[in-house]
């Protein structure tokens, strides 16, 4: 980190601590006025409590604020965030597309938001029908025969798919099959998931072209291989054109093919993963199907399954018995899923996300889903081409790409400017940066995923900006980059101290003082 300049510091100072629209917000605990509250509740009757004597002693320590204070506090906090609603957010691998507000409205209909997960089935037929309809869309778009709806996020979906693979292998009585092949370019969740389930992770090197090295992959096959976890389109933004051969080879070796579907937005409506020989794939409804990321969740990660894995799918599941929809809540209930590997989540899944995803699908239709994928791929290739024009920025692999374009920091060689610096300079330009330093297979990765939601004008402005920054870096203005960002709520943050001396909650001043003594 470089020394801040005097000018920067002076500009940062105001009498109030606020900086125009950027309002300084204390923590709610520092705004406490005991006795204040933001709710008006009726007085509870003063009967003798029946808590078995296990009554809380002493105050909890929660701060008191009135409603207007709470509204202003969180409104001002929200303004310190970049978001899709405010700017282009080309975070590779995250599919930051527009989140339609119709979806929010639909998810809040009392018939969806205000139903209890354990209500009698006859009172939730519409909800079960909705899950069934969404399942139909997912199965049709992927060309797969079955889908498990309950996983709560992408990584949870991976857990689901890999549990199904474990269950299938166990059913075959092959307890020696414990090795899972994971390409070097994989998301970190892939090896973490496999390891969590007792698999041994074996890394497969990538080829020169950013795709799986098929010979290296084949050399790793054996009768202890449980399967492969492969992202397709992969994390370098490329379609694995040998995927069919990979599927055949893994099947021939007795293993299963887990496909990470994080990048489904490139191919939805154009390519059916079921035709590629996969056995399981999670679909991030919060990526491809526009459910909001919410600052880190909630997500939703249904998993489509092949015939080979479908019998092991988790409960609960929705079925139709010819008359009405039923929930299969334990393995074998209503004569279904007797071999299910069990339950993954408290209830039947992320219903709120299901409603939003179905609203997205119905709005787009099959034609719109396809058009969205095509526009996403078009946008990524356009950005890729324009940034690389005249040899300015360095794409990591030959094109075309799918819905995201991968660059690395070769073009910054000798400038003293890094991928991180470029990202921080983009913040000052009002753009959210691309994904940095992922995938790990190239140096200083910059993974740009514009999504279909960006207009040509926005893309042109982004391209102009990033090209300008690249030129400025190459012109030798490293200091400018090291001092960035300067025009956003905070400058660079000290992450090292944060990790070394973690402060993970607010404490009253006395407590902090005592701890220091």
């Amino acid at each position, binding site marked *: 980190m470089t020394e801040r300049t005097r000018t920067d510091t002076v500009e940062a100072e105001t009498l109030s601590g606020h900086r125009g629209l950027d309002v300084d917000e204390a923590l709610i605990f520092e705004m406490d006025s005991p*006795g204040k509250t*933001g*709710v008006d*509740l009726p007085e*509870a009757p003063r009967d003798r409590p029946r*808590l*078995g004597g*296990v009554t*809380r002693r002493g*105050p*909890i*320590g*929660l*701060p008191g604020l009135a409603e207007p204070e709470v509204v202003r*506090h*969180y409104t001002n906090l929200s303004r*310190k965030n970049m978001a899709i609603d405010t700017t282009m957010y080309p975070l590779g691998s*995250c599919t930051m597309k527009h989140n339609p507000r119709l979806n*929010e409205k639909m998810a809040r209909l009392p*018939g969806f938001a*205000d139903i209890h997960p354990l*209500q*009698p089935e006859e009172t939730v037929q*519409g909800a079960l*029908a909705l899950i069934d309809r969404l399942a139909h869309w997912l199965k049709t778009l992927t060309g797969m025969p079955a889908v498990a709806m309950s996983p709560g*996020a992408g*990584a949870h979906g991976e857990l689901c798919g890999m549990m199904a693979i474990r269950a299938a292998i166990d059913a075959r009585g092959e307890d020696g099959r414990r090795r899972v092949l994971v390409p070097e370019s994989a998301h*970190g969740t892939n090896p973490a998931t496999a390891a969590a389930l007792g698999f041994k992770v074996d890394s497969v090197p990538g080829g020169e072209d950013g795709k799986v090295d098929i010979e290296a992959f084949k050399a790793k096959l054996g009768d202890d291989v449980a399967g492969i976890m492969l992202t397709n389109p992969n994390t370098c933004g490329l*379609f694995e*054109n040998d995927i*069919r051969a990979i599927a055949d080879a893994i099947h021939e070796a007795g293993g299963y093919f887990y496909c990470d579907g994080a990048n489904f937005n490139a191919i939805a409506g*154009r*390519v*059916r993963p079921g035709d590629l020989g996969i056995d399981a794939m999670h679909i991030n409804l919060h990526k491809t199907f526009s459910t*909001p990321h*919410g*600052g880190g*969740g*909630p997500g*939703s990660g249904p998993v489509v399954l092949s015939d080979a894995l479908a019998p092991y799918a988790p409960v609960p599941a929705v079925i139709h018995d010819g008359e009405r929809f039923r929930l299969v809540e*334990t393995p074998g209930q209503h004569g279904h899923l007797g071999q299910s*590997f069990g339950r993954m989540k408290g*209830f039947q*899944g*992320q219903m709120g996300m299901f409603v939003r995803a179905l609203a997205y699908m*119905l*709005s787009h239709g099959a*034609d719109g889903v396809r058009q969205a994928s095509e526009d996403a791929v078009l946008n990524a290739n356009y950005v890729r081409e324009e940034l690389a024009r005249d040899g300015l920025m360095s794409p990591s692999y030959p094109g075309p790409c799918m819905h995201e374009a991968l660059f690395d920091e070769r073009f910054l060689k000798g400038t003293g400017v890094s991928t991180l610096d470029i*990202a921080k300079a983009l*913040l000052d330009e009002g753009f959210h940066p691309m994904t940095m330093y992922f995938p790990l297979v190239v140096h200083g990765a910059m993974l740009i995923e514009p999504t279909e*939601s960006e207009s*040509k004008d926005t893309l042109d402005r982004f391209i102009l900006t990033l090209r300008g920054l690249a030129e400025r870096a190459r012109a030798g203005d490293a200091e400018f980059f090291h001092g960035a*960002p300067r025009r956003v*709520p*905070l400058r*660079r943050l000290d*992450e090292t101290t944060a990790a070394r001396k973690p*402060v*993970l*909650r607010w404490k009253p001043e006395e407590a902090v003082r005592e701890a220091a003594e």
Partner: protein
Amino acid sequence: MRYLPHTDDDRRSMLAAIGVKSIDDLYRDVPDAARIDGPIYDLPLHAGEMEVERDLAALAAKNVAAGSVPSFLGAGAYRHHVPATVDHLIQRGEFLTAYTPYQPEVSQGTLQALFEFQTQVALLTGMDVANASMYDGATACAEAVMMANRVTKRGKAVLAGGLHPHYRDVTRNLSHYTGFQLDEGAPNPDGGEDLEARLDDHTSCVVVQNPDVFGHVRDLSGLAQACRDKGALLVVVVTEAVSLGLIESPGAMGADIVVGEGQAIGNTLNFGGPHVGLFATRDKLVRQMPGRVCGQTTDADGRRGFVLTLSTREQHIRREKATSNICTNSGLCALAFTIHMALLGEQGFRGLAELNHAAACRTADALAAIDGVEVLTDAFFNEITVRLPRPAAEVVSDLAARGVLAGVPASRLWPERDDLADLLIVASTETNTGDDVAALAAALEEVL
């Protein structure tokens, strides 16, 4: 298509800039056999907002919204009043449409709210620290057992019989694949369970729910001491977070890890998801805690700010050596929790808990007065279990037909246990009026 900004002219000029003739050229790596060339059979074409709204509203109308009838369902998900402010604020686009805060300079809104969330959860549970949330209470419970195994380097967890069966199942599922043992207790609707006796030198943790799934509240201090004596951790599960306003905190009773479901605060029922898992522990165990964590630091100008931290535990850094594969959490649900808690404050939160307890006392008295109904819970927060003279699932169905959602039949949670078939788990919250209770009692008398 209203969501797609390009005109056909835009598309043509962009293809020309790329130097290809058609979009198909960009998909040339896709094997022919996997390409879809025409329209997709069996899926509709795009539709306007009005048509979609009509379609989905018709599905919603086929469900009985819990708020439209007297409703007494709990057992892991609770209907509370959520102030209008909460839902309004979480729909601020800057919160709603932001990603995980990887760029802290432009994510202080999300990060500071998470720091407030972690502090609130730590205060409520009586613990030192909390993470930035998990998928839900059940997955948090399974993660707690895995953490206890790591911390103690032991591989056997004791699960109380009063643990919600779904939490047990999620934990059991993970235990099966990760190779740790479970000692599962049998459900005891009358309360009381000798967990101390099941502790031995191989026990990594005891997992106990309070109030338990039948509604019983118990003092866990003795159990905590017994765990310490054996070198095991005490994991306390809380499925109704509002109970923490009235019941002694798990931390004060000696818990090492507290996990729970935070849905009851700030979040609607949503048919079971998304909800928000809570996870809190002691300072000394923090580096074994799963999930995202937000920490305080300063920026280059010395201003206070917040960042995601301790990421060396996590999958994107550690890959197969990570403490958990978790990536996404329940950020927006955690935000709703935080805003609701901020509105409640000390006074409001305690008042809310008192109202819930009072409502349950009223329900217990009304049901106890019915011939043939026996209330099994005498120490409870807002949920009780009653024994009916016939199978509870039938009674619930009969009552649903009369417009009352009476509660959760125990057979829904333990379909394999005939001895529990007559039990009904009944939750009451501040949303239940005296009229609701009267309607429940009257309908019950009618069908029994």
